[in-house]
């Protein structure tokens, strides 16, 4: 009888200790678009590039319903940006304001994916990048590296800056 009690106690402890709900919830339900800056230096016919930090101040504004909203304010030495994506539109407009150069506008086209994570974590909003357009003041080119935007720390967009 004592053995059976010990076995049952061990089973209960084992079960209690090993039950895992797998929940690793994000505090807010925003999945950020991660942009990495690269230099774009023309070397003859080829473009030499590497990771790049913009040496002056950079301000990034979201254009929401025709109104500007500052999301990055006078950042010095920017090398990467984490920007939110709009839940309800499928094309976001970002204005890059440089000190000492004309502004650039970056249009990010995407689909929105509302996603049920779990009853513990609730809902999340993911996105899928479908296209990029931009002006050419300091932005030489832009490329999608990882189209799916979720909570993972992926580099989603490569932004090549003219030095």
């Amino acid at each position, binding site marked *: 009888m004592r053995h059976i009690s010990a*076995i049952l106690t061990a*089973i209960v402890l*084992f*079960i209690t200790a*090993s*039950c*895992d*709900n*797998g*929940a690793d919830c994000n505090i*807010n*339900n*925003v999945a950020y678009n991660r942009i990495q800056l690269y230099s774009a230096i023309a070397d003859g016919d080829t473009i030499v590039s590497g990771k790049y930090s913009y040496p002056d101040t950079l301000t990034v504004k*979201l254009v*929401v319903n025709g109104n500007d909203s500052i*999301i990055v304010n006078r950042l010095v030495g920017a090398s990467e940006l984490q920007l*939110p994506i*709009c*839940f*309800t*539109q499928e094309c976001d407009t970002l204005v890059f304001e440089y000190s000492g150069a004309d502004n650039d506008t970056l249009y990010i086209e995407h689909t*929105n*994916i*509302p*996603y*049920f*994570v*779990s*009853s513990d974590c*609730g*809902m999340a*909003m993911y996105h899928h990048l479908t296209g990029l357009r931009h002006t050419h003041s300091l932005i030489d080119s832009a490329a999608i590296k990882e189209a799916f935007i979720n909570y993972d720390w992926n580099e989603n967009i490569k932004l090549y800056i003219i030095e």
Partner: protein
Amino acid sequence: MKILNYILLSSFLLLATAVPAAAQEKRDTSTEESPLKFKGLMLSTDIFGYLYSFIEDGTSGEIALEANLGDRFFPVVEAGYGGVDFTDENFGIHYKTNAPFFRAGLNYNFSYVKGKAQRPNYVYGAARFACSKMDYDISSPPLHDPVWGGELPFSRNDVNGFASWLELGVGVNVKIWKNFRMGWCVRYKARINVVNSANSNVGYIPGFGRNRHTCFGATYSLIYELPFK
């Protein structure tokens, strides 16, 4: 001559008694029980799934058919139907599903003692492979965009999902009266894989419970030994 007759008679008698003895010995050898000898079927239904619905979201019912092989191994198949219809208090998410699930596996009698008459009650270990294919409906309050503003509604119906998992457990099986038995089994469940949809993870797996890596469950079975072997 008398002596010769005596020898022949005694040899005949000896042969007459020896042949049946040899035959008997041979028959004993041939009827020595195989460790996997089929010894009957048990049909059972679980009542724990119904009772559990009073304390936790989700309900299920199932039946099982179990074969007795030599009182030691009990291959078993289980089929059930389970579901859930809940609205989460924290997020207001409504989730509804009803779907069948299936399990197949083996019970092993820990109380088995080779060469001895087996007791009617026994403790066993259980191992199962299980799966469920389900459709579910899910809806949530509109998602609010904390940066850009605005809201996006979310509702999906008849979303497909699939999950498979393993179960390991221990249980007891006790004879109650004539062919009727009862038993319980506590099981540790480990999810193997789950197929989610483009817009949602599976929230509830019939026969398993809430979609988690691991969980535990139990059965309390009413068992009937079918009257044929």
